């Protein structure tokens, strides 16, 4: 598990090869990667459906999920599907409006890396994970 704190809650762009959203054309960011089709890092907007980008999951090592607002539940289901349905085993990193109180649920959906919003306390965020001794549902492991 990885906890990343940045100034604005958003990761550095150059890490990402490709941005995928539900409506726009996939948007390539990395020139070097453009020549080969192998994509190793993908940024997924919450309206994207995994079926559309599943062909990249074979080479992908890092998937960034965008949480535009802490009340948006879509990245939770995206992560769960990536793990359960597509058997993706690499890093899933969530960024955006990521707050301490959300960390446990995000983690339980199979997200294993977090870009914490800048005003959040890292220690209390980590304290959320495993706060409950037992759950009523199985966790989706990373």
């Amino acid at each position: 598990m990885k906890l990343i704190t940045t100034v604005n809650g958003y990761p550095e762009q150059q890490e990402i090869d490709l941005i995928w959203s539900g409506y726009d054309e996939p948007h390539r960011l990395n020139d070097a990667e453009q020549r080969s089709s192998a994509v190793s890092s993908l940024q997924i907007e919450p309206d994207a459906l995994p079926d559309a980008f599943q062909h990249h999951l074979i080479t992908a090592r890092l998937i960034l999920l965008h949480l535009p607002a802490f009340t948006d539940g879509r990245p939770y289901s995206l992560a769960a599907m990536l793990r359960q349905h597509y058997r993706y085993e690499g890093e899933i990193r969530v960024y955006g409006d990521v707050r301490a109180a959300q960390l446990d649920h995000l983690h339980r959906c199979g997200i294993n890396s977090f870009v914490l919003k800048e005003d959040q306390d890292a220690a209390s965020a980590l304290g959320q994970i495993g706060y409950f001794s037992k759950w009523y549902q199985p966790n989706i492991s990373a």
Partner: protein
Amino acid sequence: MYQYNDDDQQFLQQRCDQFREQTRQFLAGDLTAEEFQQLRLRNGLYIQRLAPMLRIAIPYGEVSAKQLRALAAITRDFDKGYAHFTTRQNIQLNWPKIEAMPDLLGRLAEVDMHAIQTSGSCIRNITSDQFAGVATDEIADPRPWAELLRQWSTLHPEFNWLPRKFKIAVTGAISDRAAIAVHDIGLRLQSDDAGLYFEVWVGGGLGRTPLIGVCINTRLEPKHLITYLTAILRVYNQLGRRDNKYKARIKILVKAMGKLDFQTAVNNAWQALKDGPETINEDSIARFAGHFSRPNYLALTDQAPSRSVITTDQPFDRWCAQNVLAHQQPGYAAVHISLKRTGIAPGDVSDRDLEALADLADRYSFGEARVTHEQNLVLADVEQTKLPELYKALGKHNLDRANRGLATDMICCPGGDYCSLANAKSIPVAAAIEETFQDAEAEHHLGALSINISGCMNACGHHHVGNIGILGVDKKGEEFYQLSIGGEPGEDARIGRILGPSVARAEIHWVVQRLTQCYQQHRLTEEAFNQTLDRVGIEVFKSAAYEGLAS
């Protein structure tokens, strides 16, 4: 009734501790109001017109005598000594203080109660048939499944931030007392030669866009219940609209996609989950069923049925005929306790009422009571020979009204007296209608009739499915009421049709009276309100209703 084990209790304790810490952070200014709002909502706490409101969960309506007593004490210690039963089988407190909330939740936890997910955009309290396990028309007891779903939906990591609230109802009887067709997911237990199965309905709901659900799976094997529901929720969580809260419920998605496409999407999502680790095995089905084993009934025989309600003038006989229901076990009966009492808001109970009910539950019904979605209570397991005694005891507490399913058994939301979303008051409307039915004799002759009142579009008073539905609207700052007629909640669920222009508060009860008179005038023997309406047409009712009203 389901008994909490150590794990359940520990979970609840940790949840209380977590909320105590969140409240502390909020009061210290370390947590924004915006974030705390979402966290408190998921612990049942609203900020209302005059004060906060706490909605306490009563899973599928089952409550023990011990819990009723604790609730009584809580209303005294943290509130003004009364509480309100809701159409979601929950109970609400109207005047708690935010600072006291952690202690209040702690007190609830002592009796295995909580307010988890009674609000917020998540899976809400699971509702069911108040006669589960005792109804004579039951195919299978829905409670083990309701409890299984309660556990599954409690702090589900994936579904805590849905586009909008999500309500699930389960029924296991021929007559649908859980109104499954107007829920986000409605489950109906059925059985055939191959065993038990579920019919799965989705996309029903009231509110701004009332819709009857559609059946997307006519035969779901019970072991797949969790995985299939996960698939439905996953599709909804991903595709449900988040740009407009009035279009965010699953019913809008199902309607927009169409039944077939929605079904396909669910089936695709289900493929990844089906037969996976969340498949329910025989052992856990048996374990859940074991929590709802039959109480220690005595070997008794049935007493002669009481006289018909119309032919008797004896109050006890009348009460028996109206409020006492047949039971699976010989010699036992299910007793409906009316919380629709003159001078008291529908569904309201005082601390003393709660304590009296707890005592009666202990004395007559294995220490347990049920809450109905019509805002009444039930003692489900009463010996028939003890009915006269129980009737007398209920009378001492003004709980003996024989009006189950009659005109004065109105469903009524808290409305403008409490609720900050209201357009108009609803409690005084119920009181005014109630006054026109002071003659119990006349009310019995009128017979079964549902009058449902909501203070706004959100339809907590289920006005769309009342034979007569009343909806508060705001007309240039004045309280007006829109009427609809012909609604029905059960297995023949349908949405009422709007009658005509809305009417002023001072007129509404007279209009209702004219509607009931019109029904009585036109009905054939044994004909229900909606049957008469269908036969003679809405225009007849319309002209009766608006007679003499300036339009």
